[in-house]
């Protein structure tokens, strides 16, 4: 578990994508809101250099998993992101993969299965 407030240096592959898609599924958000939502939803267990989230958002948008709209707030550009239909499908896929992997890891951590009698 990461120390609260410190970015996870080796941020697990695919995890930001999973979190972004899952959290944006509920409502559209801009970057700052999304980072807060990640911190809130993970109890600050997963923290990242906050600016790092934008390239991930841009990549997901370029892949068609997210759509965005711009708004000018107090003279600043704010980009709101939402999940597209393709993004929902992608989320379904990576959620399944992630559940399978974490399930396997949990089994390993639980220790070797107790020996069963031959008969």
């Amino acid at each position, binding site marked *: 578990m990461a120390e609260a407030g410190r970015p996870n240096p080796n941020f697990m592959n695919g995890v930001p994508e999973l979190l972004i898609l899952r959290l944006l599924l509920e409502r559209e958000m801009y970057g*700052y809101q999304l980072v807060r939502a990640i911190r809130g939803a993970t109890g600050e267990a997963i923290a990242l*250099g*906050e600016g*790092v989230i*934008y*390239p991930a958002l841009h*990549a997901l948008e370029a892949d068609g998993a997210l759509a965005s709209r711009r708004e000018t707030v107090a003279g600043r550009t704010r980009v709101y992101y939402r999940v597209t239909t393709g993004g929902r499908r992608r989320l379904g896929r990576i959620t399944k993969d992630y559940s399978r992997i974490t399930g396997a890891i949990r089994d390993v951590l639980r220790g070797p299965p107790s020996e069963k009698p031959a008969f």
Partner: protein
Amino acid sequence: MKNRPFETLCVALLRAGWSPRYVRRYVAELSDHYESLAREYRADGLCLEQAQHRARKRIGDDASLFESVLVQRRFQSFARRRPWVAFVLLPIPIAFLAKVLAGLALAGGGLLVASVAGAPAHETSPGPPTWYVHFPFAYGVPLLVAVGYCLIAHRRCCSPNWALAACAILAVYVGGVTFQLDSTLLDAGFVRIGYGRHVFSPNARLLIPPLVFAAYFGISRRLGGISAAKAAP
């Protein structure tokens, strides 16, 4: 602008070949994030300086932000990802297309003038003056395309050698290829476009792209722009 916390990052990304459009967007989003964080810290009772310092720290340093963008090569500008295509293969098709467009614009302009003047189509007239047809093709198009290439090289922080290559190719092309519009038929409602090539053209147009490059090179060196082309943090 008073406070530009991401200026260094912005310059680094541009120099590394990321498209200006992408960099503008990224920096705009970072700036908004930074302002929101600073406001949050201010609400917590920190002074402005501390709030800005903490906000900047939480967003990440320039190196980590730069690295996070580095993996997204697809947002690099086309000229940086495929300089051979942009500066070696495309100049001739672009110059050709520019001439076709210029031809159509001239023909359209000629027909418009003829219709506004009310001259009947069958009446013969001397047609537009030679310079009207000759100058845009011979000088305007090569000038615009060469300037365009130098601007692209400058804006995308590409090596000046690529701009030189594009201008040299353009010089050979505009000096060796003729593309003409038959102006005498304009009033009759026809357009005839001629296309041919000759081995050597004594026209000054051959010199236009190298001159444009020389001007670009001189100005950029004076401003220190070219030396920064390969720089990255």
